């Protein structure tokens, strides 16, 4: 299918180029800003980074607790994603493969929490964590994150587990394998593509999570990266160059994951949205 008329095509390309500029230019600008000092920026906001001050990245990393925030985010997100993947896969496998009364109801219940606005749980979660001594702990945040991402994980994995042909299971059962082994040896490997997409999706969503982190963590030493960026910006509010460098440090890991896993990522994030 094509449009045929070269003029139409040309206009189209112009429109697309404009939109691309619209979508990508903020990032390009921040990248440029991150290599310039604030005095240079105020003198000429749109100039080129000549000379580029690569040293600023080291300053930002070491000078303010950026490394602490980064490590906290890594620890929290890694643990939460690991747990939610295992727990979600088990639940999805169960819901997909076994028939029992309440199966669909349970699935619907878990899935419907996707539309819950966070306000309806955040105040209560705050109180609950306090009561169980989990407030201001990374463990508490990890547990909350697991519960946040469980619905989407179950949703994506359930539809994938469904597609595993039953013959595989029946054969395995006849061969005398226990359910756990069936899950481990058959379901998981088959669903590996879906599982890896949920891992990537959950990682990105939790890496950027802000509201629960700001309510449930108060000590500086346990902060995750998004809150850290905000604090970094508050400290340095006049130092636009430094803030840009800080932003760049936050953006780069995400872009890196994206560049390496773009296909999987797009698949994962759009999974289920396509009918």
């Amino acid at each position, binding site marked *: 299918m094509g449009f045929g008329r070269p003029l139409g095509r040309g206009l189209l390309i112009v429109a697309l180029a404009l939109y691309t500029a619209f979508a990508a230019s903020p990032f390009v600008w921040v990248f440029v800003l991150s290599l310039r000092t604030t005095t240079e920026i*105020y003198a000429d906001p749109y100039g080129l980074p000549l000379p580029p001050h690569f040293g600023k990245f080291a300053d930002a990393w070491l000078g303010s607790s950026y490394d602490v925030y980064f490590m906290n985010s890594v620890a929290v997100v890694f643990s939460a994603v690991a747990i939610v993947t295992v727990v979600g896969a088990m639940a999805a496998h169960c819901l997909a493969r076994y028939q029992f009364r309440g199966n669909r109801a349970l699935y619907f219940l878990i899935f419907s929490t996707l539309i819950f606005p966070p306000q309806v749980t955040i105040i209560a979660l*705050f109180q609950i964590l*306090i009561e169980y001594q989990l*407030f201001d702990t990374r463990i508490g945040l990890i547990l909350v994150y697991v519960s946040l991402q469980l619905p989407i994980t179950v949703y994506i994995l359930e539809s994938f587990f469904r597609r595993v042909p039953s013959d595989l299971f029946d054969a395995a059962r006849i061969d005398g394998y226990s359910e756990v082994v069936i899950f481990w040896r058959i379901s998981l490997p088959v669903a590996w593509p879906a599982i890896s997409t949920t891992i990537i999706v959950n990682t990105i969503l939790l890496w950027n999570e802000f509201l629960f982190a700001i309510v449930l963590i108060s000590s500086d030493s346990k902060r995750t990266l998004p809150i850290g960026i*905000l604090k970094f910006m*508050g*400290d340095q509010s006049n130092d636009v160059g430094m803030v840009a460098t800080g932003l760049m440090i936050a953006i780069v890991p995400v872009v890196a994951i994206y560049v390496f896993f773009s296909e999987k990522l797009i698949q994962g994030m759009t999974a289920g949205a396509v009918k």
Partner: protein
Amino acid sequence: MRLRHVLRTLATVLAVSTYMAIAPAHAATLSLWTFWGDQGAKRDFIEHAVKAFEAAHPGDTVQVSWYDKNSLYAALKTALRAGQGPDVFYAEVDQVEYIDNGLLLDLSNRLNWGDIEPWAKQAWTFGKGTYGLPLEAWTVELYYNTKLLHELGFNPPANHQFDQKTFLALIKAAHAKDITPIALGVGDRPYPGAFLTEEALLKEVGAADYGKLMRGELKWSDPRVVKALTYVKSLIDTGALPKSFSTLKLGESHAYFYSKPGSVMFLMGSFYPSRAFNPPNQGGQPPDFPLGIMQYPALDNAACNECKTMAVGGSYVVNAATKHADLAVAFLNTMATPAMGKLWVETVMGQTGIKTDMAHVSGPHAGYFKELAAVNDDAKYFFGLPSQVMQGKRRDAFTQIINQAFPAGILSVQQVVDRMDAVQ
């Protein structure tokens, strides 16, 4: 054999218990969460206090966490409610919710109140208790660029105060030359935008009625209030404030005044030096900046043109749930001495609630301080900012309306009166 064994055990026990009796108590760490990390002189002051405290209490340390203001408040609100939080932290007198909920330690019988100004103590007194060390005090000031003023054809006013008409003329003249008359920004704070309005109101109705207005006992539709608001509106409509007023941050507004793009005047609390006297590459003013100080304009037939606002600013309080109450109070008392007060005034260049001999301030910026004292020679002070006197919905409305919408030119005088009376 047996006896020797027993004797050896006894000796060990005796030795250990003697050691524990004479050794210092288990070393404690006080946690301190505070603002001011980016304001050189104040940060140095706190670190100085920490060192003094640690020297006086060997084995005990203070662990300081520096926050920016909004992050600090957010972290404290959740931590304190959870029954956790630091031992000592920065607070301001408008945070009555801490006191209402019993989260602060009552310091009435524990601080060196003899070394603290009575009006400062009063600011932190609620009911039967006093809850904070009023370290920082500040007045609402009007700074200006003497060179720009001269270039616009005006001379500094005689008693440091322009009258209503001349001030408006100054605004017009600056605007005509495309110079922003007054730098001011409310991007990240809920109070600076209200300075112009609240000083005008204070002068117009006098201290007693101003207090009534803030407490909700006087209506905003009072003709004097309307008169003051109308004058301020005339200034705003003449383009007194920058176009970026709503989003300009506090730190940025300083740079707006003395660097780029530069303005004639700047409305700021007297903690201005804590940013302005930093080195220029850390956001401070240029070394030879022609700084002047003057009073807010006098209104015709006003009740009290020499009235101005003084407020207790950054203070330190003790968490009621702290496990080191005595140590925490001792840390506060380290700061509540005349020597520390003098250090504060000389380095921070601002006022303090600690009794200090202001007359003998020395140091590189003594000239600034003398000028500040001279300008405020006849001043009568009203203690308290509106945000410190108002609560709940009224404070929220004040922040949105008087602090932001009215100076931004979005509301008319009548709209302001109606909206403020609706929550009065």
